[in-house]
């Protein structure tokens, strides 16, 4: 956790409208959104370069999956959780045990998931 400030979140979401809604929810809940990455390539670059405390990963990014971003975050030791309209079948075997927030969700669900992920 970033001391003294609100926790910083990297948001990976390909749907502009949904991204904006989550961004608003996060800010309302007292989190700071460091960036919104709508595609895999940009998400990988930002996940490697930026400083943040937590990432939210939409699984399906315009036909690609965000699993490479998850692998990179594991290496960096940054907590994350997945967001998807899929149930668990959308997760591949290596990510079956990762946290998953199902779309659509209420701000309260998001708050609980954020608290869990940050421990």
């Amino acid at each position: 956790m970033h001391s003294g400030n609100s926790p910083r979140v990297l948001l990976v979401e390909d749907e502009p409208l949904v991204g904006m809604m989550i961004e608003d929810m996060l800010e309302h809940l007292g989190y700071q959104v460091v960036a919104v990455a709508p595609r895999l390539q940009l998400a990988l670059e930002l996940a490697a370069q930026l400083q943040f405390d937590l990432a939210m990963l939409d699984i399906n990014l315009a036909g690609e999956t965000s699993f490479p971003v998850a692998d990179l975050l594991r290496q960096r030791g940054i907590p994350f959780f997945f967001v998807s309209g899929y149930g668990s079948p959308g997760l591949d075997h290596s990510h079956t045990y990762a946290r998953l927030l199902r779309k659509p969700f209420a701000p309260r669900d998001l708050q609980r998931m954020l608290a869990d992920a940050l421990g």
Partner: protein
Amino acid sequence: MKTAAAMAIATWPHRGEMAQLIHRHDWSNTSLGALETWPPSLRASVDIMLGSPLPMAITWGTDLRFLYNDAYAMFAGTRHPQLLGMNLLEAWPEVVELNQEIMAAVMAGQSLSFRELPLDLYRDGRHQTAWLNLDYSPLRDAQSQPCGWLAILTDITSQVLAQRAHKAAEEAYRRAKEQMDLALASGAVIGTWIWDVPADKVTADHRFARAFGFSVDEVKGGLPIARYLERIHVDDRADLRASIQQAITYGTPFRHEYRIQPPGGDYLWIDSAGRCELDAHGQPLRFPGVIIDIHERKLAEQQQRTLIHELNHRVKNTLAIVQSIAMQSFLHASSVENATEVFNARLIALSRAHDVLTHTHWQSALLQDIVRQTASAHAPPNSHRFRLEGPPVRVSPQDALSFAMAFHELATNAVKYGALGSENGSVDIRWSIEALPQGKRLRLCWSEQNGPTVASPQHEGFGSRLIRRSLSAHADSEVTLDYRPSGFVCTALIALPGL
């Protein structure tokens, strides 16, 4: 006479029921006359008949008197003993014509044979069909004139019935084989097998062998079942083993769907059905069965599952989009009425974009179709409010939805603050492909003219934010919102993939 009669009775050498009955019968009122007066040829014939273990009968004299032995008595059933001494034609009324025919032949001195003659006889209290072999020989009197017959009768009813049952069984087998051949030829059944369980040898036809990637020679002598199980898709083996185990333990019908994976070949979905025969102690003996090709059906089922999964994902995503539209519309609205109006307009814009995508089965959409949808939603047709110009560009379903929502916000702003709010105002929407040093870009330009004088907004609202986000989803894209006094201009350089 008295002495001669007593002598004849004393010298009657035969034992048995019929011997006694014939001996005691009063023949004096018949053409045969009393027993002791019988001509030697009749006595000799009766002697032969009574001594024979085969059913035999004699008819003698002008009144056709009927005599028979013990074996025949068994054949006559309940008609015995009344039959003895009766007139032949009265004795067997149901076969009068046949007997007349026989009489005519033997009286002409001919012998006569019938083979497998079906006779409807009333015996043992009911009508029964009997099959007989009959052999008739003429009997002659002292003057060598034919005056009766001796018949040997063979009852072959049980052989005929057995033969018929055999024929019926053969017919049933032939029909079953025909049906099996038809099923095999139809392509549904692609193979048959028989597993000799105690010897662990599976023999199979060439189709079965081919499905498993074995040669006909390899399976001819029978292979252990393990050799086949090796060629089952590894994910299906455990379930199949359990299913086989149950069938050979309980003798219950075996039915299982699994994939055959021949070495170096593609897997094949099959359905197999059979049944294990158990012995009296419940031990498995033979286990025959068939395999049926269900590959196409399985693939269709899988495709359907994928589609439903995909549809579920799309619906959930759409619900999340609608949730976002609702939140943005209601949070930033001046009144509930205003919020409802804005929300409805956005929802309809989203729905129209879905329509465009449905036409192409959600493969892609043409940019001009998306733009035209927006134009027709915000101006009557041929009103010259919109000028559209650009080459055909295909965009992904996701980009189509994003662009549609962006155009909707642009048009809504134009109605509220810009060119579409004044009588003579118009909007140009132009797009082109540009080759830039960093790669090809879609240049998209929305420009308004002849509207009221434009001023920059105090702060960026939801609409502007959505426009920026929607048009810049791809990396290395740029969006400029330019509030020129002469008219608002939005320019986007979009790094669309696959340009």
